[in-house]
């Protein structure tokens, strides 16, 4: 697997990125890699964000992103590479929450709240036992897209292909389920199958996003482009494209701005601020159209 993954030659993509973004900072290889990674990750997060917004799953996204902390802790505890333990643990937490939501009579925010506090407590317990591991918290909080390596980029490419396949095959069904699961079941949509696949993919995307923009801002990367897209679009197809456009433009401009000498800001935060500008614009447009309360 690893051999096959490393065989993909990304040099032409990096040169293309350099010519599309003719900025001084884009001459550096690490910036080209970061740009490519964020251009893969941002549209993934935005497209999954459409369903996060439609299903009102922002709290679910929060719980998964915080499980990244516990994922790192597990890695430290058992001597596993955190880059492996984080997504695997996130996936387990995501699927467990979905299973508990489907089976339990408790409300979904209660189920998520319970899991949320458990994963945070677990992470803190491990860190408090070994204070030297606390250095990982900085990266966990703010993310660090600039240190991304080629193996991770290859993993992102695989995830991108999987996720876009899902969004092609399942977009309509996910809309159906988002509208009303009972109606979808009666009309022969495989609700459970789609919900589990979605929860699994969303968990992995969230974990990768934590590592790009940090745990504090990961939910924003998911829901701000989708929320702005919702303000701007009048149909389900348009919402998808608006979310993609907003995420790509915000991600690329955020990365470039953060690398300018006059800015010198954290990349994740700058990207989210760009998304937020889009949101404000979309909100004003929605107000002008008189659609804000509908």
């Amino acid at each position, binding site marked *: 697997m690893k051999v096959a993954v490393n065989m993909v030659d990304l040099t032409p993509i990096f040169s293309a990125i350099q010519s599309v973004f003719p900025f001084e900072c884009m001459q550096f290889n690490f910036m080209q890699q970061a740009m490519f990674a964020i251009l893969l990750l941002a549209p993934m997060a935005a497209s999954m964000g459409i369903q996060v917004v439609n299903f009102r799953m922002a709290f679910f996204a929060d719980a998964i992103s915080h499980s990244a902390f516990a994922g790192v802790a597990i890695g430290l505890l058992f001597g596993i590479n955190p880059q492996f333990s984080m997504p695997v643990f996130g996936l387990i937490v995501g699927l467990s929450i979905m299973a508990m939501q489907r089976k339990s009579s408790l409300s979904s925010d209660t189920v998520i709240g319970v899991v949320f506090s458990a994963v945070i407590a677990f992470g803190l317990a491990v860190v408090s036992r070994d204070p030297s591991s606390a250095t990982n918290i900085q990266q966990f909080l703010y993310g660090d897209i600039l240190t991304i390596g080629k193996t991770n980029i290859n993993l992102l490419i695989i995830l991108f292909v999987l996720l876009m396949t899902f969004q092609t095959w399942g977009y309509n069904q996910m809309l159906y389920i988002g509208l*009303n699961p009972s109606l979808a079941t009666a009309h022969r949509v495989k609700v459970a199958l789609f919900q589990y696949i979605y929860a699994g993919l969303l968990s992995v995307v969230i974990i990768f996003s934590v590592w790009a923009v940090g745990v504090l801002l990961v939910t924003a990367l998911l829901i701000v482009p989708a929320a702005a897209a919702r303000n701007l679009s009048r149909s389900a197809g348009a919402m998808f494209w608006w979310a993609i456009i907003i995420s790509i433009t915000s991600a690329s401009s955020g990365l470039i701005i953060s690398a300018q000498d006059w800015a010198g800001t954290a990349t994740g935060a700058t990207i989210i601020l760009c998304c937020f500008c889009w949101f404000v614009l979309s909100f004003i447009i929605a107000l002008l159209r008189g659609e804000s309360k*509908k």
Partner: protein
Amino acid sequence: MPIIENISNCGAEVIFSDISVNIAGVHILDKINATVPKGECTAIVGPNGAGKTTLLMTLLNEIPYTGTVTIASYEHGPKHRIGYVPQRLSFDRGMPLTVLDFMIMDAQIRPLWLGKNKKAVAKALEILAQLHAEKLANRKIGALSGGELQRVLLALALQQKPELLILDEPAAGVDFKGEYIFCELLEKMRKQMGFTQLMISHDLPTVTHHATKVICLNRKVIAQGSPKETLTHENLTAMFGIHMGMIDLKALPNNDKICNESCCKHG
């Protein structure tokens, strides 16, 4: 799971056998035995909390239950097709979803963000037109009135080409005129498409005008049969306690299966 076997020979579309539902120690339904005749309009009536929606949920396999639900199989395929019109669609009204999106998401595999299939659009518009809802096609689904939404939900259910159409309180939240139009359309479509209709209704005048069979339910089956046989003073008292005398038994059609109202001319 509903057991699907060939029961079409005995003229029944659905047979509920010994259906019991217990939720947190409360008996919601107690040994329900009832049949829904094929090609007819069956109404489930009963007071609030009688378990009407719960009975439909067993049919849709949405809740755990004991007993068996048997659904007829059909010559043109082993899978039965159900159309479902829920009571109140609780959904996010801010979703940017047009009525046409709503119809198409069900009819094509291609994701809506890659455009709409022309055939699917034509078909959806045709069904909407039959329900006098073609003008709603480009409206946002969250901006529809109660009556308009009911018609769109009916259009979606009919798009399934259902063998069994299930309606939960089809007239809830719709004014009298809207209800009349809805019932009239439903009746027309039933004759045209030949599906079996199973509906819950609070509204006894609607039931008496449209249903050919009534299942009176209050956690157990109080009575089942034609409206005239079932909607008697004794049964209504057993179900509702004091009833308001809304049913004029003399006004019920003499022949169980024929109603002479303009909206309900059974063939």
